[in-house]
């Protein structure tokens, strides 16, 4: 039996920073020190603290090493494993107190987290089904198919209050119940692993860190709705998740946890992977189904819903990865336990991908009802470089930008919508005073224009037209009528688009128009971008007191906008200046002021 274990993060992020090599080196060092009997290296899923990856966690003393490089492996083994001395320089340093924190449980990043969907990520080896079984894996499935009727099981999911984690927050139990009521010779359980929000990667992390939980949950769902076939629609850009999920499926088949007559019952269930080409719109369930059928990935009008007319026109239940990851726990700990977490209408936890101008970038799981302030300042460690918080964008390109005044809102599905944003799949991008909100809205719209399938008019043409208006505004050519036109377009697109993508695409614009109207006005009326992000609006002037009259700026200005005598302060003619910024980069005396 091993006395110690070294858990090395094998998520995509840490692997990109050579975590696989770290595993090799750790094993080499253990061998060299004759410790292979005492300590074991385990590759796990993501720990979530991606800001400080690669992570190596030493068990049982819970030592959390951050930003480990392959050459640190020998020191960890020689010092910590052999001699029991922690390697202080690799420990997390509290940014406020500058103190080393050894135990991850004492780190601000983890203190407020509650891990249900991510319970096994960073704990078990995802390529070894035994570790999952040891952590009560497949017990929920066994319990459901041996002791419960589908109706009873669906009831438990309903009681738990679990809502879909993919975005809209539809009650999961209800969805299962609806699908279960349609009779058909064949039904399907589909796992939506077509994660596409910029910056969001919780689904990938779950699949990479705990693939068996998805298999177990899909089998439970199959039992509940009467489906014997499961399909995971996963984007081809997730090779590691695909690999681990396939390994898990193979291992589950070998154990007979997938296949005919599972655990001696009459329930049979098997599953397959379907690869997506990475179209954002394929996250919409009807588009996803069309794509799985080999058709163009575009949504269709609902009703009929997939519960009635889904994959190959058969009743189909589509749930997102994170939703499934919660399911086994509901059965293991009971729906009452699950529903005791969270707010009145949103139960359980939510995983967020924390990104942007924040100290602790990473993946976090928090109980519903936590405030944005707790997430940003306690878990996220506050704004980078001590800058001032400006906004937080939730829900990806379909969400909205929330401000200071929303920081103390207890977040759940409904409160976010009420505040003009949405939960979405859990992207959370923090912006500081240097961010221009018009540019941010433009950024999201660019994404939507790229990703629109082009089926319905408002999304195909309308979003393009909104983008053109924003581009015009950022160029300093906007007028007040443009803002009215923009607002009307945004409302009409929201009101008339065919699917969720178009219906939510104006959210970043509407929320910034609502919360940062003064910035739009500044762009349009004063022709100024105070965050200095819109290059065309930047005003370059020369500070006479600093200017030495070296003439470098004047000689480099491509439009001869700069005049001035040698050794005399120079001057920029604003009518000629094209805002290229060459003078600013060329000036050796910091005499150019950008406003």
């Amino acid at each position, binding site marked *: *039996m091993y*006395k110690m274990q070294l858990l090395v993060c094998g998520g995509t992020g840490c692997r990109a920073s050579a975590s696989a090599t770290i595993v090799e080196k750790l094993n080499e060092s253990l061998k060299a020190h004759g410790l292979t009997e005492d300590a074991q290296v385990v590759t796990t899923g993501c720990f979530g603290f991606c800001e400080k990856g690669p992570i190596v966690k030493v068990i049982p003393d819970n030592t959390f090493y951050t930003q480990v490089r392959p050459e640190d492996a020998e020191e960890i083994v020689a010092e910590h494993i052999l001699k029991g001395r922690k390697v202080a320089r690799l420990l997390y340093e509290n940014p406020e107190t500058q103190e080393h924190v050894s135990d991850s449980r004492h780190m601000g990043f983890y203190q407020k987290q509650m891990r249900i969907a991510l319970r096994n990520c960073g704990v078990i080896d995802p390529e070894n089904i035994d570790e999952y079984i*040891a952590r009560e894996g497949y*017990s929920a499935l066994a319990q459901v198919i041996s002791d419960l009727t589908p109706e009873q099981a669906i009831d438990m999911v309903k009681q738990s209050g679990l809502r879909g984690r993919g975005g809209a927050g539809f009650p999961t139990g209800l969805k299962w119940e609806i699908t279960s009521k349609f009779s058909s010779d064949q039904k399907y359980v589909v796992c939506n692993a077509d994660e596409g929000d910029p910056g969001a990667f919780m689904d990938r992390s779950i699949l990479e860190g705990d693939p068996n939980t998805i298999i177990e949950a899909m089998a439970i769902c199959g039992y509940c709705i009467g489906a014997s076939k499961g399909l995971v629609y996963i984007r081809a850009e997730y090779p590691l998740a695909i690999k681990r999920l396939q390994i898990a499926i193979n291992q589950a088949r070998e*154990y007979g946890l997938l296949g005919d007559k599972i655990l001696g019952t009459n329930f049979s269930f098997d599953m397959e992977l379907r690869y997506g080409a990475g179209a954002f719109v394929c996250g919409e369930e009807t588009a996803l189904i069309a794509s799985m059928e080999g058709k163009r990935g575009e949504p269709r009008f609902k009703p009929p819903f997939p519960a009635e007319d889904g994959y190959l026109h058969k009743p189909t239940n589509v749930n997102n990865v994170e939703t499934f990851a919660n399911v086994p726990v509901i059965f293991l700990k009971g729906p009452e336990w699950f529903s005791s977490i969270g707010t009145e209408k949103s139960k359980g936890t939510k995983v967020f991908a924390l990104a942007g101008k924040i100290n602790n970038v990473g993946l976090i799981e928090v109980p519903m009802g936590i405030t944005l302030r707790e997430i940003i300042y306690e878990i996220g460690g506050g704004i980078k470089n001590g800058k001032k918080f400006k906004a937080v964008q939730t829900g990806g390109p379909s969400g909205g930008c929330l401000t200071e005044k929303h920081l103390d809102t207890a977040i759940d599905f409904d409160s976010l919508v009420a505040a003009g944003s949405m939960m979405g799949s859990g992207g959370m991008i923090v912006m500081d005073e240097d961010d221009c909100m018009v540019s941010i809205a433009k950024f999201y719209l660019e994404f939507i224009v790229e990703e629109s399938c082009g089926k319905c008019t408002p999304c195909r043409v309308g979003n393009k037209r909104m983008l053109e208006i924003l581009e015009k505004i950022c160029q300093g050519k906007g007028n007040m009528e443009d803002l009215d036109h923009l607002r009307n377009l945004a409302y009409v697109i929201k009101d008339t688009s065919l699917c969720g993508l178009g219906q939510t695409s104006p959210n970043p614009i509407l929320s910034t128009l609502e919360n940062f109207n003064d910035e739009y006005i500044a762009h349009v009326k004063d022709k100024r971008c105070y965050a200095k992000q819109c290059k065309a609006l930047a005003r370059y002037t020369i500070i006479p007191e600093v200017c030495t009259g070296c003439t470098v700026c004047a000689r480099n200005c491509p439009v001869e906008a700069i005049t001035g005598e040698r050794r005399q302060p120079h001057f920029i003619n604003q009518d000629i200046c094209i805002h290229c910024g060459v003078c600013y980069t060329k000036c050796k005396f910091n005499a150019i002021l950008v406003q």
Partner: protein
Amino acid sequence: MTKIKSLDDLRQKKQQLEQNMEIREKSDHPESLVQIKVAMATCGIASGARTVMNALVEKIKKENIAAVVTQTGCMGYCYAEPTVEVKKPGQDPVVFSYVDVKKAEEIVDKYIRNNELLDGILPANYQTI
């Protein structure tokens, strides 16, 4: 791999597999467990700390005690090695000196089980990270 054919099969399988995970499960909530630290610096190892640690691990497993055994660096009592620190939930840590296999078993039987103190307790005079 052999197939898991029933609910009981799955339970048995889980029990077999739990051992390897136990160490990770325990590290999640060490406050509720007895934490035993064996000083494993050069001085400790030279005095036989590794044997002591193995004995402790086996003993608590045999006795089914909710404890976690970890190693630690030199505690500064090089003269008294091997040394073992035991921290019971809600109590201050106690450091035992000159621990050998026999004494290790005594620590478990007497101190951990019955809260009886033994000879050779050292004053705790350090903080750990």
